[in-house]
């Protein structure tokens, strides 16, 4: 027996030393910094421009911070900028978008989650065929269906209304959301579903009491997907609503592309940021929720 505490250890020991300036690190951080700049720089330019007055903008120094901070462009973008004939700014479009997005997101997520639940747990006759058709729907280009839907909406009397657009968004969200929910529910342990059935829970009881509480992460993903998708939609908004009901993206386009007078870059920048604010805040709010949801849903064993 030798006493190892007396003879000092030789050779590598303890944590492996890492070089902070290895070639790998330089490449990694270089790429990350470049990409960050690529995305952050335009945002920076937009932001500083929106806080400048027109005289300052005409100087042409797009990267310099504002000498004199003014919020006038933001106020104008929100409530005074002209779109064609009316001069109400983005506010009308904003409220229209809110009225479109909220019901569409809620409706599509409820329907799609029930669909996905039925498809994964209550295998009815023809479930697979139904699912295949639904998924196929995800690959049909929207443009093909643009005009037929105009006719359909007109026939049911919803053409030009917010309700019509809500319907369209709900339907178009269906394939991808159903796929999302079905795959998530399929990944939940089947024995849980069986146990609930033995416990006498029916279709809706299992859905509301067992499945939904376990599915916070996937609901968060669906909300992010739908809110950004529907808020940013331009095509359907233009095609299926009338000018009174135009969503915010269409208003923004009309403000930025209005041909009368001088181009007010600061107002345009402010309007653009305002329009992007909703998806942006959704990312910030639910991003954290998302991570927490995943952590909470992780039950080992």
């Amino acid at each position, binding site marked *: 027996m030798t006493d190892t505490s007396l003879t000092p250890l030789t050779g590598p020991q303890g944590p492996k030393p890492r070089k902070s300036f290895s070639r790998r690190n330089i490449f990694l951080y270089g790429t990350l910094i470049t990409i960050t700049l690529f995305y952050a720089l335009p945002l920076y330019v937009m932001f500083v421009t929106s806080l400048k007055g027109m005289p300052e903008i005409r100087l042409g120094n797009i990267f310099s911070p504002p000498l004199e901070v003014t919020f006038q462009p933001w106020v104008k973008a929100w409530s005074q900028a002209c779109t064609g004939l009316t001069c109400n700014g983005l506010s009308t479009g904003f409220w229209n978008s809110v009225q479109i997005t909220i019901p569409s997101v809620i409706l599509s997520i409820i329907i799609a989650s029930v669909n996905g639940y039925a498809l994964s747990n209550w295998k009815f006759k023809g479930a697979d065929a139904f699912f295949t058709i639904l998924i196929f729907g995800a690959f049909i280009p929207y443009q093909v269906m643009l005009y037929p839907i105009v006719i359909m909406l007109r026939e049911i009397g919803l053409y030009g209304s917010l309700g019509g657009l809500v319907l369209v968004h709900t339907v178009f969200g269906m394939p991808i959301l159903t796929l999302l929910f079905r795959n998530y529910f399929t990944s939940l*342990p089947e*024995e*849980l579903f*069986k*146990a*609930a*059935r*033995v*416990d*006498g*829970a029916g279709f809706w*009881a299992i859905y509301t*009491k*067992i499945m939904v*509480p*376990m599915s916070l992460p996937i609901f968060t993903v669906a909300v992010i997907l739908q809110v950004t998708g529907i808020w940013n939609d331009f095509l359907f908004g233009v095609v299926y609503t009338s000018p009174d009901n135009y969503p915010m993206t269409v208003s923004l386009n009309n403000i930025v592309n209005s041909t009368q007078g001088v181009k007010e870059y600061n107002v345009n920048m402010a309007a653009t940021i305002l329009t992007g604010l909703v998806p942006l805040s959704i990312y910030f709010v639910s991003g954290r929720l998302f991570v927490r949801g995943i952590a909470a*849903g992780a*039950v*080992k*064993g």
Partner: protein
Amino acid sequence: MALLPARLRVEKIMKNSVEIKNLDLQFGSVKVLQDLNLDIGKGEFLVLLGSSGCGKSTLLNCIAGLLDVSGGQIHINDRNVTWAEPSDRGIGMVFQSYALYPQMTVEGNLSFGLKNAKLPKPEIAKRIKQASEVLQIEPLLKRKPAALSGGQRQRVAIGRALVRDVDVFLFDEPLSNLDAKLRADLRVEIKRLHHKLQNTMIYVTHDQIEAMTLADRIAIMRGGQIMQLGSPAEIYGRPINKYVADFIGSPSMNFLDGHVENGTFEVGDLSIPLDGYEFVDASATDGPATMGIRPEHVVTGELVESAPFQVNVEVNLIEPTGSDTLVDCEVAGHHFRVRMDGQSRVSVGEKLRLGFAPTRASLFDANTELRL
């Protein structure tokens, strides 16, 4: 009632708890269960034992009503429940993965089924109290499943079946996710529970120790059919065919391929007298056969002298396990294992004299593999 003959009356009392009649089940074109018949008595502990994929879980799911059968009937407590919902069948089920609802507390898990059945609150509280006392999970009632150990989770899962106050319990490999020590503990607890409640239990496992220790009767399944149904002693002592003989027992049975001739079993240059062997069919004819001898039925040392058959072998390999020592050798060109006491001193290459009694051996037809 008084007019009924005594025998009929007895039958009325001894009614079966679960009856499975000509059960078929197929997934698409794959037939998993075929024409399966099984009667399980009231208060019986039946173990379904078989290798992986033989259809044990499928059968259990059919009884529970979680799978629609393709043919046949299922009766529980004299009621045809073939088309009944799982919750209306009077069964409780315990799953391998516990299947506890993760977002509910233990109490919520236990009360979920009762709330669905719209039981009054005081009744629910009473049943939860009883069940948690029996299973000793009272301190855990307010916890979520994630904050429980594996053994505690399985106890809660059993509790969930217990509170339903049903006559038939279904267990699908409830202990296989637990470590060996805990498994042994819970096994005893399940046995105790059965003694206490006296309800019917159908228990799926592929652990034969579990099967032997728990069962009143064992059903050995293979390929969607029941090969043998009998008490543990019967299954162990008189396996109906070579598959069952090989499947039951650890270390597994030794097999010698030879043939039966005039009341002896001839293998190589050995001839083993079959005096006292109980043939299934007394008029069994001579012919090729396989003899099976369990390693623990072979004797060594002084006991050999009293054994009806004796043979000399050379030790090839020794596997000490603590309590026993397994000795590998060769008998008439066949690999042969012997279980000796852990205390006995043997070494590789040593000559050993073995003896065994043909009455404890099993003979199987070489072609049909059925017991002779």
